[in-house]
């Protein structure tokens, strides 16, 4: 399957066939999830309606972490098996993951203001999400700093893998740090277990976010492949004229 897709033309054809369906599914899932979550799910007895931020915040945070894992796996596949689409996939996933990271941070901040009375708390989860965002930024910066796609893809893959080794260490150290300095005012979801009336719309939203990720990923991969083809053609044209 993966080897068959190594042919960009075949991949583009498949992507063209899949994209309309995925796009439609994404829109439907978003409508279902957001209407259910924002309109019909019960408000929290303590937090009131602000708890609805969760339906955007939590899936975004999940996808931000999923995006980095996806990038690391794609980088590994690209480095080891030299799969021609792997680095395209990793590159396409980076801005998406960074975007989800930002959404999670901003919605978290908006949620924190009424709940904790402040826009930002140096809590372990918030801080590790912020560091993850910085890792995404570094990855994207490295891609844009190197001109040749060949070298850029491998350099970015090395960075993604080194980052992936470090992510658990960073996460653990931030947890340790926060328990040292900040014993109070920590948000916990595991206190009261989530009620099914909230859990189901949350899961539907998570599926919607995941579908969005896959759809836009395919879209961006398509654009990247076409862009590379244009680049190759332009270079060939320039070489013939010279």
């Amino acid at each position: 399957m993966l080897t068959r897709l190594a042919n960009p033309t075949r991949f583009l054809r498949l992507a063209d066939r899949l994209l309309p369906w995925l796009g439609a599914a994404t829109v439907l899932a978003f409508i279902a999830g957001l209407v259910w979550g924002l309109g019909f799910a019960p408000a929290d007895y303590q937090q009131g309606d602000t708890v609805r931020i969760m339906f955007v915040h939590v899936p975004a945070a999940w996808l931000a972490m999923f995006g980095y894992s996806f990038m690391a796996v794609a980088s590994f596949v690209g480095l080891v098996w030299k799969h021609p689409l792997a680095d395209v996939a990793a590159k396409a996933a980076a801005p998406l993951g960074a975007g989800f990271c930002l959404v999670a941070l901003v919605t978290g901040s908006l949620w924190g203001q009424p709940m904790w009375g402040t826009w930002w708390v140096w809590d372990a989860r918030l801080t590790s999400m912020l560091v993850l965002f910085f890792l995404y930024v570094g990855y994207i910066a490295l891609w844009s700093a190197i001109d040749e796609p060949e070298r850029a893809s491998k350099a970015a893959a090395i960075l993604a893998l080194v980052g992936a080794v470090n992510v658990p260490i960073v996460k653990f150290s931030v947890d340790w740090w926060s328990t040292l300095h900040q014993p109070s005012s920590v948000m916990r979801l595991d206190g009261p277990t989530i009620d099914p009336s909230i859990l189901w719309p949350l899961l539907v939203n998570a599926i919607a976010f995941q579908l969005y990720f896959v759809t836009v990923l395919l879209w961006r991969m398509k654009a990247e492949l076409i862009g590379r083809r244009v680049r190759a053609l332009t270079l060939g044209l320039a070489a013939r004229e010279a």
Partner: protein
Amino acid sequence: MSAFLALLRRDLRLAFAQGGSVGLVIGFFVIAATLFPLASGPERAELARVAPAVIWIGALLATLLSLDRLFQADLEDGGLDLLLLGGAPASVVVLAKCLAHWLSTGLPLVLVSPLLGLLLGLEPVGILMLVKTLLLGTPTLSLIGAVGAGLTVGVRRAGILIAVLILPLYVPVLIFGAGAVDLATLGLDTGPSLALLGAVLLVSLPVGTLGAAAALRLAVL
């Protein structure tokens, strides 16, 4: 082994020779730490509280400043190609260069740090712990930094790019390093922090050398 020692000796001689960067890095470290009281006010209790953070961040930035020359000079004069074409594996080359980098930036920073601790009003226990944590932590900074230096070698504006790539990865070292000094001044147990600093060093040893070696092969070949 002989290639390792020869490269180490060469790099150290270059670093400590006239025009080397050792003095500059120490100068930056001291000046950066001196600027801090000027900005925050000279109250001793306040300064002593933030001293571990100031000194650790100063050491981090000083290391960062010296990193963009780690492989760049060798790339410019063609030495890097020869080093990688020579018999020694690329990871050994990286290890020798990292060791030389640490001996010429990390170790001087460690040696100057007690003075800065004194200036910022850190207690003797804190100063001792500061030296210990820097001794354990600065090699990690060199090793992880080598990956960034290798990935950006030959790239425009490499210095600022290294900072963006590497600083997030320095988070654990900073937390455990500065945290241990805090704990020591409060009279608490610092054993776990030191053990974790050592663990981070051990992890970054293979990750740093192999990662930087892969990056260098990419840049040259």
